[in-house]
């Protein structure tokens, strides 16, 4: 039985269509991360599951029970807020036991649940303190503890780590993954941070403009984005995009042209989807671009000048100006290409070089943004 099921969930704010017919099924024990740019509706969707937001049409089903009209407290969920939302006038223990107290559980049971949660989260020393006496990481733990004591069917997390500093965020990320393994509960987690999404999720839900763009395992989404949005959203540094035009279409595939690069040939494209003259986009991940000794006639390549080098220790990121060839929609906001080399590189600013890639590594997106290239193998985990 699925743990959470959303059926055609629709939500309008005054004149604004926030959620558009969302269908989503989350299995028991799954860790699902919802990502998307700000304003994509991910937090609204989470609050919809929690019952903090009402919906205009559709159904929310939790553990097989239609809870669309039920209060948050009756849905069998617990939520961890971005702001932690701890009750400032209560001690840590009172905060964590509040849900059970509202459910009129006996005091002994509440104490036992609080003690157990405090043990899991290493909060035993803090139980009599007030939230304001705690550090950010401890507050976050209390917020999680408050969720644990209620032993909910589903945990909901609304960007829980975004108020923490980088080191603490990594630590909490690991702890949360450990907690999921330990409790085995269903967890739905909203974030705008793709590292959190890639590292924690069993499955990622990519949202954009109130719509689900794609659902799948992190590596599946990375290797086989369904469209140009998902391709651009997942992966840092971001995928390079080149605008191109279809030249010929035949059974073997398509050829296309773009200013500043020799004609490219893509095999295995469904010829029915495109016709000569269509505007398409080529996508190539920074790690698939290589620095070539010299231009290879058989390989897609283009010359350029290095504008910026980022030495990250283990890897090196180059920003390459390949005019007249332009990268569109890039992270840096320029027409430069991003090249990621998995080693320390002696290349310096101003260097002239040739970058190349295998078309088998590249993606082709149709005029409507859908991915045209065939499935790529997903690395086994």
């Amino acid at each position, binding site marked *: 039985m699925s743990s959470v099921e959303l059926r055609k969930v629709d939500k309008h704010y005054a004149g604004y269509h926030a959620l558009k017919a969302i269908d989503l099924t989350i299995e028991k024990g799954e860790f699902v991360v919802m990502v998307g740019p700000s304003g994509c509706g991910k937090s609204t969707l989470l609050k919809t599951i*929690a019952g903090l937001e009402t919906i205009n049409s559709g159904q929310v089903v939790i553990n097989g029970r239609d809870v669309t009209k039920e209060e948050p407290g009756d849905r069998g969920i617990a939520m961890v807020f971005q702001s932690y939302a701890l009750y*400032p006038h209560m001690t840590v223990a009172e905060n964590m036991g509040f849900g059970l107290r509202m459910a009129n559980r006996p005091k002994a049971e509440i104490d036992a649940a609080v003690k157990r949660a405090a043990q899991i989260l290493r909060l035993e020393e803090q139980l009599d303190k007030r939230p304001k006496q705690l550090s950010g990481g401890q507050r976050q733990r209390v917020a999680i503890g408050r969720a644990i004591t209620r032993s909910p069917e589903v945990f909901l997390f609304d960007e829980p780590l975004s108020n923490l500093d980088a080191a603490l965020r990594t630590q909490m990320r690991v702890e949360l993954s450990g907690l999921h393994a330990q409790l085995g509960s269903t967890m739905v987690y909203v974030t705008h941070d793709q590292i959190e999404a890639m590292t924690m999720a069993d499955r990622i839900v990519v949202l954009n403009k109130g719509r689900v763009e794609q659902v799948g395992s992190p590596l599946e989404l990375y290797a086989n984005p369904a469209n140009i949005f998902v391709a651009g959203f997942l992966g840092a540094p971001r995928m390079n995009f080149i605008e191109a035009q279809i030249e010929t279409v035949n059974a073997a595939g398509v050829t296309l042209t773009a200013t500043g690069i020799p004609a490219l040939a893509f095999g295995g494209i469904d010829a029915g989807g495109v016709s000569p003259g269509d505007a398409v986009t080529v996508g190539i991940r920074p790690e698939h671009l290589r620095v070539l000794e010299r231009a290879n006639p058989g390989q897609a390549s283009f010359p350029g000048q290095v504008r910026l080098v980022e030495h990250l220790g283990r890897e090196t990121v180059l920003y390459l100006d390949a005019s007249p060839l332009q990268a569109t929609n890039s992270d840096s906001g320029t027409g430069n290409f991003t090249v990621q080399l998995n080693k320390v590189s002696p290349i310096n600013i101003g260097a002239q070089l040739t970058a190349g890639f295998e078309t088998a590594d590249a993606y082709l997106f149709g005029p409507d943004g859908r991915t045209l290239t065939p499935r790529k193998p997903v690395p086994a985990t």
Partner: protein
Amino acid sequence: MPGFWRRNRHWLTPALFLAPGLILFSLVILAASVETVWISLHEWDGIGAKTWVGLANYAELADDPQFYVSLKNNVIWLLIFMLAPPIGLALALIVNQQIGGMRILKSLFFVPLVLATVTVGVVFGWVYDPTYGLLQLIFGLFGGTAPALLSDENFATFAVAAAALWPQIAFCMVLFLAGLNNLNEDLIGAGRVDGARGWRMLRHVVLPQLSQVGFIAIAVTVIGALRSFDMVAVMTTGGPYGSSTVLAYQMYEESIFSYRFGYGAAIATVLFVIMISFIAWYLHGLIKAERSNA
């Protein structure tokens, strides 16, 4: 003098900004308070020479039955005014609901705040009028006769304080409405997820967030009850037979009508001491609350 200005502006600028307020405050509040205490030690008609009498005014006050009537009436005002914060909170919770037409209702509740206190006094004077007042109309519906509240020494103070309560409730309501608008939405959400609703949501999640506002509402209400003057002046002028007078009004009457400025100043000093002890308590509470929030 640009060099002088540049060297000294780090303290000159704040000093200049503070100066008008400080001068005005020292002159109108501090100097006047000190002079009041000074006058209270004299026999003075307000025009002629002052005669030193030491604590004689206070000794007389201690034996003055009228003083105890005023003091008792101030306590009655205080008790009646203490209804304002809870009623104001209840009204704020009601008009804060997202229901159609609530905006109109909310603005109606603001009306007494726009009216001058004197106006409220005059209007309630008419309401209480035993021949053609609203009260008489209501009593008339049931075939009764309204009591002449303002000319009955047992009821006058209650009637005046009840009239003054009206704008005070509106004031508290506005304070609590502002507080309700500042509620932390995530905390309410957390409360809902934890299953708190209705009275328990109010008690455990909403009210704790309103404690600061509530403290201010109570303090302002206490001060309002202690300094009550204008309503008494307009509605009863302390009558009948001084039964509805309060300390502030008695001070005014002794000074202005009986030309006993020394005695009036002694009453003012006593009122001042009562107020200052309350304000000390208030500031103590405020500082404590701020410390615990730091």
